[in-house]
């Protein structure tokens, strides 16, 4: 459905995403996790052709078999909303405050799908129902500020679904919501993915919701995809030291039993875009760092279970094997 290969997105000379590769199958739910500045949102915007005009995009983005890297705005407009749709983090500011939410959802249907006013209206109400908005007729007449955060996010999901996209990108869809409301949004996305056979790209820094929302996981750090694999397997036994750190830093309820124990953290901060080096970008914070880590980018190792890791530790372990497969 979607295949990214060697994708680099650079602002000036600085790569926010560096030679990332990732494939997403039809109906697959994939999570992209990483801290702020890891490149996950830039990657998502690249999939919509919506990186800043000044950004340089290299490599390949194939959507439904069509090469989109470097495509013009006109070509991207055919893809946006129809093949790939996106919802954003902040559901209040993501809606036009001057429009009734029903109009916001109906507009692309009228303008881009050529529906007349009544058909677009009927479809909007059906979508509102599908995303679980109570009393769709009344809600359609409301302005964004009259809705709750969860309702706004449902409106945005309805807008994203309106033109039946094959892939839905959700960029931190629950971060701005209460935990309970966020949980229900995750359930809704799971439901929609199953019912529609739609792929979901779920971007988050919250491992708990990612665990619930995705089949496969892609961990990013400093613009690099450093580990991919089935979500449950990656979280249970992370291969990359950074992923291991993330998993260890998860807040857990049973941690309270060890009264004095502090929550585990990863020392240091994500490097700024301008400070990124050629080598492994986790070098400097990594507990297992070796002398050549900072200077040399590790190769990607692939396991028999379809997991990938980009780390010198794994690389060293599989160097002997011609197939570059690790256990």
């Amino acid at each position: 459905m979607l295949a990214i290969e060697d994708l680099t997105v650079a602002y000036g000379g600085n790569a926010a995403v560096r030679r990332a590769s990732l494939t997403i199958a039809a109906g697959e739910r994939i999570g992209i996790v990483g801290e702020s500045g890891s490149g996950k949102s830039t990657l998502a915007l690249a999939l919509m052709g919506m990186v800043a005009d000044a950004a340089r995009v290299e490599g390949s983005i194939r959507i439904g078999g069509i090469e989109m890297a470097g495509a013009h705005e006109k070509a991207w407009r055919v893809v946006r909303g129809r093949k790939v749709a996106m919802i954003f983090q902040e559901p209040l500011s993501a809606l036009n405050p001057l429009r009734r939410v029903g109009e916001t959802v109906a507009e692309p249907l009228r303008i881009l799908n050529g529906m007349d006013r009544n058909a677009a209206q009927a479809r909007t109400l059906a979508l509102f129902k599908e995303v679980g908005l109570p009393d769709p007729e009344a809600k359609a007449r409301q302005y964004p500020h009259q809705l709750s955060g969860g309702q706004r996010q449902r409106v945005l999901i309805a807008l994203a679904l309106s033109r039946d996209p094959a892939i839905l990108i959700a960029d931190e869809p629950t971060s701005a919501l209460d935990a309970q409301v966020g949980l229900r949004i995750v359930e809704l996305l799971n439901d929609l993915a199953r019912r529609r056979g739609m792929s979901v790209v779920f971007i988050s820094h919250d491992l708990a919701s990612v665990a619930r929302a995705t089949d496969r996981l892609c961990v990013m750090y400093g613009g690099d995809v450093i580990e991919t694999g089935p979500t449950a397997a990656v979280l249970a036994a992370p291969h990359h030291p950074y992923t291991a750190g993330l998993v260890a830093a998860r807040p857990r309820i049973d941690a309270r039993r060890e009264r004095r124990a502090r929550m585990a953290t990863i020392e240091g901060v994500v490097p700024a875009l301008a400070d990124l080096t050629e080598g492994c970008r986790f070098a400097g914070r990594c507990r297992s760092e070796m002398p050549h880590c900072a200077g040399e980018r590790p190769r990607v190792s692939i396991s028999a279970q379809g997991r990938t890791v980009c780390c010198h530790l794994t690389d060293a372990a599989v160097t002997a094997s011609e197939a570059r497969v690790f256990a």
Partner: protein
Amino acid sequence: MTRFFLRRSAGFVATLFGVSFVVFWVMNVVPGDPALVILGIDSTPEAQEALRRLLGLDQPFALRYLAWLAGMLVGDFGTSYAFRVPVADLIVERLPLTLSLAMTGMTVTIVLALGLGVLAAANHNRPVDWSVMLVSQVGIAVPAFWLSILLVIIFAVHLRWLPPGGFPGWSDPLGAARALVLPTIALAAVQSAVLARVVRASLLEVARLDFVRTARASGLARSRILWLHMLPNALVPIVTIVGMQFANVLTGTIVIENVFSLPGLGRLVFQAISNRDLPLVQALVVLFATIVVVMNFLVDIAYGVIDPKLRPAA
């Protein structure tokens, strides 16, 4: 809504009181005697004194102000010292020309500013943007009277396309329209230069908001997003400035009507002040203040129309 209206009306009345008092007082303390201006410097002191008594100028300041106020309340604007006709007649005769000029001036200002502002914002940090900003900088810097003279030299004297000034009257609609073209351009140039900058800045502010990204993500064209999503959201500051500019345009007619010899209110204000024609000055100032206050009221109504959050609770 009723409370909103009551509050605004009270503010309106207070504004008119303040404005009329200040003008009455200023006209009273500035040098220049109406009787002397009317009769000329060769007139006898006796004749001047007689005229002063006739006009009521021998009465104390406070009494004269109160008498004028009382007249206003019953719709009597008084009689012009210099023209010797009712002030109301003078104003009614000249109002259509000035209002037409102000309206065409504002319309051209808004159309030009929206076009240029949107063009600049859509091409932010590109040569088109820089050119628009440069032109608007020049437009702001150029004085209206100088631009008027330049326009007359080019379009009236050299090209002979349009009349250099004067007004043929409304019975000749084509002639009247032609007479208003150059004054309108002179009036709108500075205002549209200012407004274009406001439009551009306001749009660039809106461009950063998330809903613009949502609209793009749903596949809508950039031009549609710009005009139908971003511009309405940029309107509040634009409408505020337009309201203020309407006042500027009204005062601008004083200069423009004099340069183009147009028999409108702007020219009348100028003559009334030169003649120390107190009743006429008073009436005109109150009229201008009323128009400005009404304009600001309309701007406040417009906020509610633009943004549902700013609507007064029903």
